[in-house]
C-alpha cells in the first residue's frame, strides 16, 4: 500500500506515563521512586483513520503484531531506567 497517509497524525502521544509515588521512611522494600504505566495507541485513536501507512512487508507486520506502525506499542518501556522529564 502507498505511503500516502490520509489519516493525519494530530500529535504523537507517549507510550508510557510516569509518576512519583509517596515514599515513607518506614517502607521496607527499596522504594521505586518513579513508577510507570503503559498508554498504548488505541487509547488515542478511538477510530482508525483510513489509509494509515503500513509496515513494509508481511513479515515485519507479523513481527510487530500489527499491520500499522501507528498501532504498535513497545513493551517493556524502551526508556526504562532513563530519567523521565
Amino acid at each position, binding site marked *: 500500500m502507498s505511503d500516502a497517509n490520509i489519516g493525519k497524525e494530530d500529535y504523537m502521544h507517549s507510550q508510557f506515563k510516569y509518576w512519583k509515588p509517596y515514599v515513607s521512611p518506614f517502607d521496607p522494600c527499596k522504594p521505586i521512586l518513579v513508577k510507570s504505566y*503503559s498508554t*498504548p*495507541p*488505541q487509547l488515542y*485513536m*478511538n*477510530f*482508525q483513520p483510513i489509509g494509515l501507512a503500513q509496515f513494509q512487508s508481511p513479515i515485519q507486520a*507479523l*513481527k*510487530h*503484531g*500489527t499491520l500499522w506502525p501507528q*498501532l*504498535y*506499542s513497545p*513493551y*517493556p518501556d524502551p526508556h526504562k531506567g532513563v530519567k523521565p522529564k
Partner: protein
Amino acid sequence: MYYYEKKLQYPVRVSTCNPMLAKFLIEQYGGADGELAAALRYMNQRYTIPDKVIGVLNDIATEEFSHLEMIATMVYKLTKDASPEQMKAAGLGDHYANHDRALFYHDASGVPWTAAYIQAKGDPIADLYEDIAAEEKARATYQWLIDMSDDPDLNDALKFLREREIVHSLRFREAVEIIKDDRNTKKIFKLG
C-alpha cells in the same frame, strides 16, 4: 462450522525447560482474563449484538482461539519432559498430583475456569465495554508475564499477543462508535 488449520498464528519458541514460567503462563489459559474467557465471551455475545458489529465479535473470538492454542503450546513446551522433581520445584506439585503434565483450564493459582468470569448482558454498550476492559486486562497480564520471564524466545511471542490485545481493543472501541452513531438511527427511521 469450524475448520482446523494445522499451523499456529505466530511461531512459538521457548529457550529452556522452565515449568515455573508455565505455571505463570497458565493464567492466560484458564484465568479470568485469559484467552479461553475471551474467546468464549465474544463467541457467545455475538448472537445478540446488533448486526453491524457481529463480525467484530465473531472474528476476534476466532482469533482468540488461535491465541489459546499459542499459550497451550508455550505451556506444553515449557513442561514437556520436566521431571516430577522439576515440576515440584516450580510450584507445580499440586498440579502434577492431579494432572501429571496435562494442561488444564485453571489460572496461575490453580483455580479452575468458570463461566462466572464472563458476561453477556444483552445490552450492546455493556457488552462492548466489558470486551474493551477484557482486552486491557489481558494486555496488563501479558505485561506482568513479560516482566517475570527471562526467556527471550517466549517474550517474543508474548509481545505479539500483547499487541493483539491493543488491536482488538481498538476494534471494540470502533464497534462502540458504530453502535452509538446517530446516523444509523436516522437511516432505520427512514427505512421504517
